[in-house]
């Protein structure tokens, strides 16, 4: 004991916590991009990367500049976006409706859920020839393909989400005499919304993959058609520009869904 007046010595407890925590570091992400671009550009200029294999970023930029100034960018992009938005919106709306029906009505679940399970794993692009025979070579077959491709994941996400809503909340609704429609609209739909939104994130990516695949095979206009045309002309700078547009499209869609989530799920904080 330290009753002789002198203070007792001790060693501090060593720190062994910390780490394992997400810290946002935006600059590093941007820097990674910039460094990769710089290496790529230098590699191309010095001839280390052959321009037949991969064009320099500056060449891709000028191909993109031409796309922009000639008005072709908008022409192709608008064609793709039109198909994408209409197919995705239809697929999502129908998918949520059918997902709800499966979750709420046992006979519907018994009849439709095996069907969904059977069709869901089929790569939808394999159905494009069939869709062209059914709906013709025009817009309908492409919109139909996206609708079909986004419908099934939406159905599965929706009924999974509704199944997971706390039944205690449903019982609360019943105990206060809420109508069935109110319970569906005010309790089940918001409760399933997180699952539906994650489903939307996946179906948006599926829709982009499908539209490009469809345009590669059968279209005059659209980003896919542009890439296909550039490929057959060995215009690799245009081809890479097209691919980068797709990447930008994917990022934009994902950012929009993030905004939608932030607004619709603001109650989660």
């Amino acid at each position, binding site marked *: 004991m330290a009753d002789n007046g002198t203070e007792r010595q001790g060693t501090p407890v060593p720190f062994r916590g910390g780490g394992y925590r997400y810290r946002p570091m935006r600059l590093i992400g941007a820097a990674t991009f910039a460094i990769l671009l710089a290496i790529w550009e230098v590699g191309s200029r010095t001839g280390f990367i052959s321009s037949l294999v991969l064009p320099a970023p500056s060449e891709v930029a000028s191909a993109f500049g031409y796309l922009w100034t000639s008005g072709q960018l908008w022409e192709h992009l608008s064609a793709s976006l039109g198909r994408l938005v209409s197919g995705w919106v239809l697929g999502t709306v129908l998918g949520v409706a059918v997902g709800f029906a499966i979750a709420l009505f046992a006979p519907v679940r018994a009849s439709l859920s095996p069907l969904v399970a059977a069709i869901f794993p089929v790569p939808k692009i394999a159905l494009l020839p069939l869709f062209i025979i059914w709906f013709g070579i025009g817009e309908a077959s492409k919109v139909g393909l996206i609708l079909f491709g986004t419908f099934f994941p939406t159905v599965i996400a929706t009924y999974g989400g509704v199944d997971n809503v706390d039944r205690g909340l449903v019982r609360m609704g019943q*105990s*206060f*005499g809420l109508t069935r429609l109110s319970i569906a609209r*005010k309790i089940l739909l918001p409760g399933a*919304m997180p699952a539906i939104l994650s489903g939307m994130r996946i179906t948006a990516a599926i829709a982009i993959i499908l539209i490009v695949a469809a345009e590669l095979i059968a279209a005059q206009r659209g980003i896919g058609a542009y890439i296909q045309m550039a490929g057959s002309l060995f215009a690799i700078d245009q081809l890479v520009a097209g691919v980068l547009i797709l990447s930008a499209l994917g990022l934009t869609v994902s950012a929009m869904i993030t905004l939608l989530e932030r607004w619709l799920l603001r*109650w989660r*904080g």
Partner: protein
Amino acid sequence: MDLSLRNLTKHYGDLLVLDDISLELSSGEIVCLVGPSGCGKSTLLRITGGLERPDGGQVLQMSPPPANSLNPLTFIFQDFALLPWRTVEGNVSLVLEDRPIGEKERAEIVADVLSRTKLSDFAGAWPRQLSGGMRQRVAIARALAVRPAVFLMDEPLSALDAQTRDLLMEDLVQLWLRERFTALYVTHNLAEAVRLGHRIAILSRRPGRIRDIVTIETPIDERRHDNPGLIAVQERLWDMMREEAEAAERELADG
């Protein structure tokens, strides 16, 4: 409104959960239902409120509910059952939205019940921002909004910590002194039952049967923790329940 529970029986599969339960509940009276866990208290409450069908017997309303009552039999749940995607105000308004009342009147009712439960300052808060005690007060406000004839309370204080439970219990006592509501109050906490109940029905372990009904004469506003009479009642209840609780504890949940 008087309620009469007559010969209620309930099975889950082969398991007899409630066996011939009869109980009278008269206007302005709080009847507490105590029993070991798994004895069917909550099932009995759900049957009383029409959320579950009994296999035998019936629950009767002995007089028409008051004309201004929007939802005569109104639950207060142990887990509060608030919608996390609605604010305090929105959660109260929810139970009025399917009723034939105008938007203006609805807003007035919401404002009134929030002020009666001292929640006016939190009208715009999300449930996740509130403590457990506050959440249960929102649920009480929601229940008040539909002007119930009978409250069906399913362990309303069990999810709260001890201090919050005492505070909310005082709120319930004050509420009863003001409004003289009728309630069937399910709990496994004997102190709560002795504090709030006019009569206390003890249920045996599964299959649930009414073992005894104890009447407490001391007026609710004169009950204090150190009242020897009440302590004696609580002791008596515990003696009755001890054996049941011990046996119930040893049962397998899905046995």
